[in-house]
């Protein structure tokens, strides 16, 4: 019995681990491929030839680095999630979405075609929405999910516009082709607009100012999702695109200034915001935003060193931030809270987690012998090479100080802080299961390994840097670490970090005094626009959908008039008014009858008279048809008009006797000047159209065809009837079918007329 349940348990754990096989298999495949096949890899299939969209893949060092992160961190996230989500009823959905997300991310970083990349890009936004809102019964989750979707989605629209514009300028949507051709169109005036649009897309995706606010709110997602999407992979997609395009546009001042300034502003703002938070996960989120800002700044910095720094920071960040997120998840799992005020002295209950946190924090603080140290060194060198502004350097010190403080909070405060008897605070801390310890442990060990022996990772970093800065040479990697400069900067950051750590609570309170400044912040504008947009939409809908038929007709007729007039104006050079010919008496009489009937109809008040007068117009048309060679039309018009007038007159006469107040609208016969003006303009424009069309040359070939074919092909002599019955018989069949349906459609209405007709 006991054995059996133990077996069952083990089987269950293994079963939950099954999804992790997918990223693990991909990781193995990727590592094997990297070992065998030298970069870059190219593959291409024709996908939509009519649009020139090829499904072409291009994997160079940068893509390979991202692929490693996607499947590597992915594997860890899947293993971790198998235990973290064990009790979660939506576990299967989370894993399903994560697999899809992984596929979309892979697609985004291997696509060479910008539009294909865009499709995958949007897919990741959509999946992020679904994953943040996975707990859709919580309002918080729904709001955060929607916010992330709206911010990244509207950024995505700008990105699409930017991509299309860039494609137009460069004459290709292939990233590699664009990078090759870039020197040819750097002077194009449209380029800045295209890049600005792409910036909006990339900045919203990578949580850069002023779109940064969605990322901390996205922490509503389960921790594995946060670690994967909102720290390691998806939020770096914007930086990825910028890094890709850096090879083409790094020489532009607009490029450099935009990225450096926005990146720095983001990093500083995020560093300041970090101090205000008390929730460990949100603290980590803000520090992620700060790192993303630093990355953006580094992409903007010119020089080969900057490219290497980007590559190194990409990697280092993934190797320490993901474990820290896992640590936050373990704490949440073990104690039920993430509030740093409640969490102290946890090392006694969660020793393994404490060790992981410490190792990750060392790397995050950038202490020697860690991979974070190497990244910091590369950054310092990059700034030196690029002769960055002093202001940027000061900002970097502040950001580094805060990141040291965050590392200390996560490792020292939470685990080694003075034990305030958490058991009394209602927490029952316990260590996380193995599946939640191994993944972060593996990652921090890798971080240490690469820190101790950077040569293991150098080829990959070099390849990635080469993709960003084509001038980068593989041999530069090992020469690029300037440890002395780092140590110098490190000392300042450590001191500052210590101060911030000690004053965390007081600094937070101080910041909170300025919280009224938030009403001018970007997030406030987001909420304001959420209120204003529906109002605007409602107003605009009311303007167009007012529910009043006369005004709808007015809009339709006005637009039709304008279209006809525009057409006539375009054709202006070819205007030729027809000559005045003598009139035959019947035609003149018919025209007079039509015009007179129409004019009287406009102003007559009695409806019966109105009906008769409209009949006059019909009879006038019939006479006109008769004397212009169309007896068939004349007979048809006569018959229709007679039946209509007689039947409707009978109806109207009878309705007059009912209490139903027909014709009671007093204004009906009053002159309506606006309506009259619109009507006159419409009539006049069509008269002009008819007259001007009459002057155009006429293609008579159809008439000739019917004239010649009637007797031999259709065995008849009345050409009009033959067109209807023979040449265009299918059309006529359609028409009588329509007539039939018109009768069917109205049958239910008849049935209700005073009980069954």
């Amino acid at each position, binding site marked *: 019995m006991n054995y059996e349940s133990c077996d069952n348990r083990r089987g269950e754990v293994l079963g939950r681990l099954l999804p992790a096989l997918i990223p693990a298999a991909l990781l193995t495949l990727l590592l094997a491929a990297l070992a065998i096949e030298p970069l870059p890899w190219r593959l291409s299939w024709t996908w939509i030839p009519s649009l020139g969209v090829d499904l072409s893949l291009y994997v160079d060092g940068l893509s390979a680095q991202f692929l490693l992160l996607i499947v590597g961190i992915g594997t860890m996230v899947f293993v971790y999630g198998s235990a973290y989500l064990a009790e979660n009823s939506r576990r299967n959905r989370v894993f399903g979405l994560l697999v899809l997300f992984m596929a979309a991310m892979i697609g985004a970083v291997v696509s060479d075609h910008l539009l294909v990349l865009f499709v995958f890009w949007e897919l990741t936004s959509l999946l992020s929405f679904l994953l943040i809102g996975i707990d859709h019964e919580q309002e918080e989750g729904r709001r955060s999910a929607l916010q992330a979707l709206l911010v990244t989605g509207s950024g995505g629209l700008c990105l699409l516009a930017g991509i299309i514009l860039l494609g137009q300028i460069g004459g290709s949507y292939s990233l590699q082709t664009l990078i090759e051709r870039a020197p040819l169109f750097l002077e194009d005036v449209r380029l800045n607009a295209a890049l600005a649009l792409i910036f909006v897309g990339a900045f919203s995706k990578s949580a850069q100012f002023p779109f940064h606010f969605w990322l901390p709110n996205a922490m509503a997602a389960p921790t594995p999702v946060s670690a994967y999407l909102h720290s390691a992979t998806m939020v770096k997609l914007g930086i990825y695109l910028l890094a890709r395009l850096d090879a083409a546009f790094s020489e532009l001042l607009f490029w450099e200034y935009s990225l450096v300034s926005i990146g720095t502003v983001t990093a500083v703002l995020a560093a300041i915001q970090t101090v205000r938070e008390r929730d460990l996960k949100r603290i980590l989120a803000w520090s992620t935003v700060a790192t993303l800002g630093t990355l953006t700044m580094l992409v903007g910095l010119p020089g080969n060193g900057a490219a290497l720094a980007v590559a190194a920071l990409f990697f280092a960040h993934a190797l320490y931030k993901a474990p820290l997120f896992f640590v936050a998840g373990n704490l949440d799992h073990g104690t039920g809270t993430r509030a740093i005020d409640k969490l102290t002295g946890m090392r006694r209950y969660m020793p393994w987690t404490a060790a992981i946190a410490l190792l990750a924090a060392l790397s995050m603080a950038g202490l020697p012998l860690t991979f974070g140290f190497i990244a910091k060194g590369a950054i310092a060198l990059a700034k030196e090479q690029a002769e960055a502004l002093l202001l940027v350097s000061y900002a970097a010190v502040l950001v580094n100080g805060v990141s040291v403080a965050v590392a200390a909070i996560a490792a020292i405060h939470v685990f080694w802080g003075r034990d305030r008897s958490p058991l009394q605070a209602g927490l029952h801390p316990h260590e996380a299961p193995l599946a939640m310890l191994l993944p972060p442990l593996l990652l921090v060990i890798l971080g240490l390994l690469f820190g101790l022996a950077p040569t293991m990772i150098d080829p990959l970093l070099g390849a990635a840097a080469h993709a960003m800065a084509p001038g980068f040479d593989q041999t530069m990697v090992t020469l690029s670490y300037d440890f002395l400069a780092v140590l110098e900067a490190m000392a300042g950051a450590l001191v500052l970090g210590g101060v911030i750590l000690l004053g965390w609570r007081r600094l937070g309170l101080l910041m909170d005094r300025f919280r009224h400044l938030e009403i001018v912040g970007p997030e406030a504008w987001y909420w304001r626009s959420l209120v204003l947009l529906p109002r605007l939409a409602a107003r605009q809908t009311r303007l167009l959908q007012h529910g009043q038929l006369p005004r709808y007709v007015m809009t339709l007729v006005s637009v039709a008039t304008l279209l006809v007039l525009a057409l006539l104006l375009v054709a202006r050079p070819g205007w030729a008014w027809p000559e005045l010919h003598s009139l035959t008496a019947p035609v003149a009489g018919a025209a007079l009858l039509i015009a007179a009937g129409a004019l009287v109809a406009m102003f007559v008040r009695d409806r019966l008279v109105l009906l008769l007068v409209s009949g006059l117009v019909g009879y006038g*048309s019939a006479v006109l048809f008769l004397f212009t060679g169309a007896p068939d039309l004349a007979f048809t*018009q006569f018959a229709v008009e007679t039946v209509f007038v007689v039947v409707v007159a009978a109806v109207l006469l009878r309705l007059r006797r009912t209490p139903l107040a027909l014709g009671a609208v007093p204004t009906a016969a009053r002159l309506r000047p606006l309506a009259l003006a619109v009507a006159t303009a419409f*009539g006049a424009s069509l008269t002009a159209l008819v007259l001007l069309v009459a002057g155009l040359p006429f293609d008579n070939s159809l008439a000739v065809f019917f*004239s010649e074919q009637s007797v031999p092909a259709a065995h008849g002599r009345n050409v009009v009837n033959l067109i209807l019955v023979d040449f265009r018989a299918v*059309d006529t069949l359609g028409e009588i079918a*329509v007539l039939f349906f018109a009768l069917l459609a109205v049958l239910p209405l008849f049935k209700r007329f005073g009980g069954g007709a």
Partner: protein
Amino acid sequence: MIWAIALALGIVIAAGTYLALSRDLLRCLIGLVLLGNGINLLLFTSGRLSSSLPPVIGADEMVLGVAANPLPQALVLTAIVISFALLCFSLVLALRIIQLAGSDDLTRLRAAEPTSQDAVKPALEEES
């Protein structure tokens, strides 16, 4: 000849539009009739008024001689019949609406787009 017809059809279309812009449901319908008439004339003249002889081939001939263009006639013939069907349909619909709503004032027919009670949406302004 084209001038007379063009002017007449312009007047018919203007009158039809003017009536269709009315608030009175039945006037609207008659406006539709006139508009249809005007457009039929427009269609008819677009095939040119080449001859006043009907397009019927003589008993001992194989090819149509000088005659009016048959193609617009075929088009207009179907148009007359279809617009008659449309008219019948609208008439029945209109009578039914009048019976249901107890009014033939188009600005009072509010079943499909009722006056909004929503705080966000501005109320419809009533035509005075």
